[in-house]
């Protein structure tokens, strides 16, 4: 009979009117972020051997790294991700042989100025000679550069410094 569908539709919207809502009040409540989430990158400097595999794996040439030879080992001095070109495909994380590069659950990578967008994971100077024979990269005696953000071994700190520049 004509009109059955019309009545049915009204019933469904009436039912939906009282049904629980799917909205999440965003800043106050958040969906849990899954473990595999592709968020901001984190570089574990203790593991990184500066091999450059991640830079090669990237389809978009996002990663640029600079290294220096200190003693017998390669020392990572600069690790910058041009995050504005990043597709968050995860190929770099997958390619890392030492499991040093990770995704974190940080979703907010906004920057006020375009120049601040690149994600500086490491920015430090190479020591003149190997500090300790066993762990050369673990505690580099790094000197702060002219830049205000004091580079530290801990990549998280360096990364958060980069975002601190936002207000300046």
């Amino acid at each position: 009979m004509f009109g059955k569908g019309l009545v049915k539709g009204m019933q469904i919207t009436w039912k939906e009117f009282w049904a629980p809502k799917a909205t999440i009040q965003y800043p106050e409540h958040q969906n849990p972020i899954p473990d595999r989430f592709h968020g901001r990158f984190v570089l574990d400097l203790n593991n990184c051997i500066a091999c450059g595999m991640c830079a090669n794996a990237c389809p978009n040439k996002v990663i640029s790294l600079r290294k220096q030879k200190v003693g017998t080992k390669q020392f990572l001095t600069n690790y910058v991700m041009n995050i504005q070109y990043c597709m968050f495909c995860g190929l770099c994380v997958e390619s890392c042989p030492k499991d040093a590069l990770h995704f974190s659950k940080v979703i907010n990578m906004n920057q006020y100025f375009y120049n601040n967008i690149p994600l500086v994971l490491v920015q430090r100077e190479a020591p003149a000679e190997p500090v300790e024979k066993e762990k050369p990269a673990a505690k580099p005696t790094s000197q702060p550069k002219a830049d205000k953000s004091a580079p530290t071994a801990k990549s998280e700190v360096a990364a958060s410094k980069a975002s601190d520049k936002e207000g300046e």
Partner: protein
Amino acid sequence: MFENLFVGIADGLRSLLGGLPLEINEAIVMLVKLVAILVFILVNALWLVYMERKVAGYMQARIGPNRVGPKGLLQTSADIGKLICKEIIIHKDTDKVVFMLAPVLVFVPTLMVFAVIPFGKNMAAIDMNIGLLYLLAIASLSTVIFWMAGWASNNKYSLLGSMRSVAQMVSYELPMVLAILGVIMITGSLKMSDIIAAQEHTWFIFTQPIAFLIFFIASVSECNRAPFDLIEAESELVNGFNTEYSGMAFAMFYLAEYANMLVCCAMVTILFLGGWLAPFGLDFIPSWLWFFIKMYVVMFVIMQLRWTYPRIRVDQLMGFGWKVLVPLSLANIFVTGIGMYIYRAIGW
């Protein structure tokens, strides 16, 4: 105690101005009444936008606006505030005078109509004896304004929208008037208060169900609401006749839609739902409150219709209007006439 709240206020005002000559006294009271209605309509339109968004949200598993003000109640005020601040873009090919005149005039017919609507017992600003005729005559003026807006925009989408609007309004005016005719035949009066008084025992929705249905459909169509919102059909015509409007000019059209809805709901309430009459003898609730309750129930149904049904196509709309509604309303008049004749013959 609240029964005669507004009537009492008017009487108080009258006695306050007692020293003045009668004509001036009446004129001032009338002015106050009209301003009160004006404010009521505008505020109502504002809140109806909020209600629409809230209803829509709740039907779509959302919660609607809830950030500006308590429960989001100030959302539309904030929106209007923003729209006032925005520039009204007038592109170079428009007919500037007509283009700007349309949003200015769009509220006029709606506001004029409200002069005759009885919001409660003795609460019509002017209780004209040709109230219904006046109402129908004025309400159909809005066609011209939509046409003005669409034509002056010099945009093909606007033109299509306003062409549709003219076609739609003209063809739905007819079944609407013919449907009311059934009611008028029973009451024998065009006066609003008489029509309400005639529903003392049974509402016309029960004695004139087909007329109610036709009138309801036609009035939904008259105020361009889904499923008959062809003139702004956002998925086809971008925004129809008001595609080119921005800022407050757009807001005027937007609010006018809700003011129009208010008229339609008020008319449905008066003609078929017994106006301010209290059902089941529940007359401890003041008459004007009853009027509003009924009006907002109708409003809710119209909103639910919008958020349930898809849009009808333009040729189907015309076909439905001329091939279904007009013959049906004519048949309704015929049946009503026979019914009345038999009723009188039996003298029941």
